[in-house]
């Protein structure tokens, strides 16, 4: 049995099975054990398997920031019980994290752009794709230079190779008519492509979700401009469509991915201390079913800024509190950071670490 090590690791299934259980940091070390291990870990099949396993244990990711200098030196990962610090995009300033998908994070930086007090100066919008687990950072090439707060969404999946970044902006044509346009970055081509005029543009403040390669955003109501009008959807093939929201009154809605279904977490139209969850059953006919309703302690959904879903758990974030709601036991608990933190935290996103490259 002297050569058991090399024999064991000849059985590709077994060694793949073992390695796929390791965190990404350990896998980076294992890549320099032998050529055989290196080629195995770098193979697309292995990356897919590792991601599948990692998705069994999603965590939440925040970035702590101070008001004036949003330099992100680290990210905070938590599952509610334990908290871990991940390296940030060192030296870069984030304005915002756009989304987290398959272990990658899309973040934007608007150096030179000032959004407060409605003054806008032309500056540089930088979009980065970042993998905190492998520390790979990719700065996307510049798209059209516009002094406008970008409306961005990332489409990925259902297959793991590649992603597309959609960016909406408003332009004024030669006849002074304002219209919406969209451009899209593909990780496969590595470049932006204009897709011209589009009928609708996402509501700037709304967060998007991506489910099975389709990105969903809220669009501002044309009636009052203050409430959600409908949902804009675009798939990886760049087909646009519109989904109506439930007819029953849904106030302060948030879009979430609940077990692979587009869902709305919203205030109950009658009782302000309740929240409802609506699940989309048919996107063509906009058929929604109210699947859940429960009371909310501490704060009500009007005060909720952010909602993130991890398996059967929903994280509600207000300015001061983060509350976990367990959908199995219907119980609540508050996220305890364990130390007094004077920093503010960004909205939480569900995160699973992966080996996926930022660049294809």
């Amino acid at each position, binding site marked *: 049995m002297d*050569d*058991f*090590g*090399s024999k*064991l690791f000849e059985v590709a299934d*077994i060694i793949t099975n*073992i390695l796929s259980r*390791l965190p990404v940091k*350990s896998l980076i070390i294992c890549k*320099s054990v032998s050529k055989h291990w290196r080629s195995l870990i770098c193979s697309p099949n292995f990356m897919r398997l590792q991601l599948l396993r990692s998705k069994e244990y999603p965590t939440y990711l925040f970035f702590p920031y101070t008001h004036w200098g949003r330099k992100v030196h680290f990210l905070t990962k938590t599952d509610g019980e334990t908290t871990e610090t991940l390296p940030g995009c060192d030296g870069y300033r984030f304005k915002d994290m756009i989304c987290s998908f398959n272990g990658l994070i899309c973040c934007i930086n608007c150096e030179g752009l000032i959004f407060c007090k409605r003054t806008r100066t032309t500056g540089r919008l930088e979009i980065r794709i970042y993998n905190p687990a492998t520390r790979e950072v990719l700065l996307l090439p510049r798209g059209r230079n516009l002094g406008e707060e970008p409306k961005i969404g990332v489409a990925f999946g259902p297959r793991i190779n590649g992603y597309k970044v959609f960016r909406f902006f408003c332009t004024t044509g030669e006849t002074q008519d304002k219209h919406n346009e969209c451009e899209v970055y593909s990780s496969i081509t590595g470049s932006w492509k204009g897709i011209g005029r589009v009928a609708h543009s996402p509501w700037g403040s709304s967060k998007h979700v991506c489910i099975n390669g389709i990105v969903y955003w809220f669009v501002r109501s044309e009636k009052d401009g203050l409430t959600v009008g409908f949902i804009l959807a675009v798939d990886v093939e760049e087909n646009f469509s519109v989904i109506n929201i439930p007819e029953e009154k849904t106030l302060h809605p948030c879009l979430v991915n609940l077990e692979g279904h587009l869902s709305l977490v919203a205030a109950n139209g009658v009782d302000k201390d309740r929240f409802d969850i609506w699940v989309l059953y048919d996107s063509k006919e906009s058929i929604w079913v109210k699947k859940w309703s429960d009371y909310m302690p501490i704060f009500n959904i009007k005060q909720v800024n952010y909602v993130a879903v991890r398996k059967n758990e929903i994280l509600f974030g207000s300015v001061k509190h983060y509350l976990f709601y367990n959908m199995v036991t219907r119980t609540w608990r508050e996220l305890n950071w364990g130390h007094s933190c004077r920093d503010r935290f960004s909205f939480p996103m569900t995160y699973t670490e992966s080996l996926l490259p930022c660049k294809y």
Partner: protein
Amino acid sequence: MAFTKKVTLKSSDGELFIIDRAVALQSRTIQYVLEDTNPVDAIIPVPAVDARTLSKVLEYCKKHLIDLNTDFEDYSKWDKDFVDAEVWMLYDLIMAADYLHIPPLIDLICDKIASMFKGQTPDKIREIFNIDNDFSKEEEEDFKKKSGWAFK
């Protein structure tokens, strides 16, 4: 169909193990053999597994059959002790579990071996698992330069 309640397994080194059919059915490989041929009082050869390993595997199968009412805590303690073994034994066990196709046992041993990789240097991993280093000095330096943070 006539079901025999006992099944006889024969290890690679010729030892016979007479066990309950239910215990043997935890191995999908043996399950297929029994379904296909339904051997009455026949001996099922297990040519890839020696007696020492087979008895250990059967110990696992018996424990996980009998104690279905044992709570989770007890199981994890027993499982942890079960895989607290030398590397060569884990190797024999996983090869046997793979051949006999016992998914929970494969999971258990894979988790154990994976935990032995965690936090180790490439040198230490090669030493524990007896793997040849086929990288050149230059290549190794290059890895350290590119992902040195992971080695700290």
